[in-house]
């Protein structure tokens, strides 16, 4: 469950909703607002702090870290995890490298946002 909170915050920082240096909601505030337990949010903040996306100053709460590229790294780590999973599944199916490439291309073609000229869906 804390992974959801981590993903949410990462996405908002990436999208620019939360600028570097901006104060994050307190743990209790975020917990109450999203209806999850305090300890879950706490754990998510700890994880984000370890990843360098946010910084916690004693008595002042948590802030978005000054280097937002950390968020990118975090997302890239997430992508890597997903790709690892893809590779494992492909191995179970016995797909070779070329077949996997083709499958990936098919998915890229099918995804509507892959071609910027088509515009994004609302």
């Amino acid at each position: 469950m804390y992974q959801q909170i981590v993903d949410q915050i990462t996405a908002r920082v990436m999208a620019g909703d939360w600028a570097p240096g901006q104060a994050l909601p307190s743990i209790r505030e975020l917990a109450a607002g999203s209806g999850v337990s305090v300890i879950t949010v706490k754990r998510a903040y700890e994880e984000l702090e370890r990843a360098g996306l946010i910084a916690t100053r004693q008595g002042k709460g948590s802030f978005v870290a000054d280097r937002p590229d950390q968020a990118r790294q975090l997302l890239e780590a997430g992508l890597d995890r997903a790709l690892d999973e893809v590779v494992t599944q492909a191995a179970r199916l016995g797909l070779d490298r070329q077949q996997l490439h083709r499958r990936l291309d098919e998915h890229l073609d099918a995804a509507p946002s892959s071609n910027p000229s088509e515009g994004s869906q609302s």
Partner: protein
Amino acid sequence: MIPAFAVQSLSKRYPHFALEDVSLSLQPGTVMGLVGANGAGKTTLLRLLSGLAAPDAGTVEVLGHRLPEAQADARREVGLASEDMRLYRGRSLDWHIDLVRQIFPSWDDDYAATLVRRFDLKPQQTLGGYSHGQRVKALLLLCLARRPKLLLLDEPTTGLDPVARLEVLEALADVLRDERRSVLFSSHNTADVEQLADRIAFLHAGRLVADADKESFLDQWRRVLCLGAAPPTLAAWPEVAAVRSAGSQVEVRVRAWREDLSDRLAAAGLRVERVDPMSLEEIFVTAVRTGGAA
């Protein structure tokens, strides 16, 4: 800091059931989910914590009040709602509000009005015309609007439709904003506990089998999928809770996961395919089926 509650070596014996040697406490600002099968002793524990029952052995302290001696003082600061509690069918919600606000000086009129709107209740209608969900929400409103320091809730979401359940959970989440207020709630719906609780207390057959913060509790459990033949001794490993074989696949449910377990499984002739965290639901079922050793 005075704990929200603290019980020591608590025992309560009934002719066909006994709660034995329970020690448990809750820090202020924390939400504790009380998990256990029917007849595990959740209701008995809540009755002891609200001072309605006197223990046969051990001590109960709630918000610094010794129970059951100071039960009235304690219940002034405790909001208690249980599944078997009903309001007066022939009377309106307004009438109940009027009664409760006269008893509790901490009653918050504005918050009560907010909750009436949020729960979509008709204050002048008699409770007899309310649906089950509306009655549960009315009861909860009467508890919440007095802003108790400790909420003791027995099955607050049982029998609610998904919308009403969400409304109730959101109202409970509101309590989290105040770090001096605490909640203990029992639920058959482990998803509610998983979502809202900071701590988990696990009762089985009248005994407390686990008491831990939720994330570390969940973290200890894993479902490990392996290929190969399970050695007969595997089920007896102390960290293994359950083993199930289907063809060449072996599912091992682990109650105390450590990274080195993968290697030990490999050494026992099992190839680890994947390691997944378990939901509280799965943990609950596994623990209850294997005799409660969580």
